[in-house]
């Protein structure tokens, strides 16, 4: 009966922006990352982009931002949906002002959420994915302490989910004190596998419905 066709033809849909699934990559670009580590990290970022755009929904919903910390803090990439993301080529130099980096990551998440709300954009819980091969260095201890407290408060209030990945000689004990979730140790420089995992996880989250507990894929690239 052609009434079916009619319903399909006459009902119009509201044009709403896609919900967003923000993820901040908080990356250590201090001097110790020079050479193979930073190159492997750059390769990893390319694979993150490649993987995300394979999933059409994730490509429109996952938003990536990149904050680097060395002697300075830089927002190398402000929030951008995966399909618009052009991975930068990072270089490594200087110290490890991790505390300031954490503050910056949490700042830009707060700003982004307020932009979402202003524009009626629904969103998922933001992720921060911090990658470091060291420990805080080159900044006042109380900056690190404040950043750690703020991060723990934000995690407790579900404002953010903060993941930490240690590379090579990272001080895992120290990282464990700073974050709430147990830091993972990257196997070698297996950044590509890690970013493929991150993409799969973010894609799963960006598809999730109300109150779906998203089961993250198993982690083959790291150890606790």
């Amino acid at each position: 009966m052609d009434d079916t066709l009619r319903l399909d033809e006459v009902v119009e849909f509201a044009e709403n922006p896609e919900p967003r699934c923000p993820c901040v990559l908080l990356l250590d670009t201090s001097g110790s990352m020079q050479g193979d580590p930073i190159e492997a990290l750059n390769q990893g970022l390319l694979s993150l982009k490649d993987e995300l755009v394979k999933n059409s929904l994730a490509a429109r919903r996952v938003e990536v931002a990149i904050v680097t910390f060395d002697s300075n803090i830089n927002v190398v990439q402000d929030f951008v949906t995966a399909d618009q993301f052009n991975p930068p080529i990072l270089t490594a130099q200087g110290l490890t002002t991790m505390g300031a980096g954490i503050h910056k990551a949490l700042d830009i998440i707060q700003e982004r959420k307020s932009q979402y709300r202003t524009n009626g954009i629904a969103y998922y819980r933001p992720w921060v994915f911090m990658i470091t091969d060291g420990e805080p260095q080159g900044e006042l201890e109380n900056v690190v302490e404040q950043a750690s407290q703020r991060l723990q408060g934000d995690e407790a209030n579900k404002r953010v989910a903060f993941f930490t990945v240690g590379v090579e000689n990272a001080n895992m004990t120290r990282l464990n004190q700073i974050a709430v979730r147990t830091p993972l140790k990257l196997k070698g420089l297996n950044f590509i596998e890690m970013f493929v995992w991150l993409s799969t996880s973010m894609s799963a989250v960006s598809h999730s419905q109300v109150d779906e507990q998203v089961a993250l894929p198993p982690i083959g690239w790291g150890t606790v």
Partner: protein
Amino acid sequence: MNISKQIAQWRIVAASVCGTSHLKNNQLCQDAHHWQVLSDNVLVAAAADGAGSASLGKVGAMIAVETAIENISTIGLTQKSLTDDVLVRSLLNDAILAAKKAVEDEAATCDKQPQDLATTLIVMLATPEVVAVMQIGDGLAVAKDSMGNLLALTIPDSGEYINETTFLTSPTALDTAQMKVWRTDIVNVGIITDGLQMLALNMVVGEPHKPFFFPLFEFVANAEDKTEAKEQLVKFLRSERITQRTDDDLTLIIAAFNNS
């Protein structure tokens, strides 16, 4: 001459269909709905969306809608008894409480926690003169008056994040419940679960989208054959235009009061 066509009455078409994401994972449709027309043109309708994370969300949703409808339909309501707002509110509140208790009892019987049967719940009472809704969690209830105004009786109650909401079994369920009573010439009512929210609601202004609801209301007003109308609605909900936009379970209840 078919006399029944001349009698003023509610026409209702409703369907729940499984989302494509649940089909992919061989999951059941977690949505449920139920409705009944009582004497004196009192319509009672309910829709529920069982939580994807709850192992028995589907069971919770089914028990919730059936209990709520049964609770109201056994009272012997007439339009006259719905002239008092306080009474209307307490009817809805009692129905929700009964549904909550039934879900909790079922959990106990199955040796499960109430949150294993977590579900949202929307319960609506409508006559040609008044519509009243109580809602826990997300989803949306609307009504159209004889002047063509479309009113959002409730708004989706999601938490800060799109994949969060309140459930009937949540400790805060009754504190966060929405309730609305609207007295006017009611021509149409509608209920959707959250799967259709992005299509039926303008998120920026928080208003129901008229071009979504009005053609559906016209469709139900002209639906002569109930079975056929339901088939058409199911086909529509499964159409590519919809599944391209949402992969969640979908429930739509639409009703028209034909006073001609």
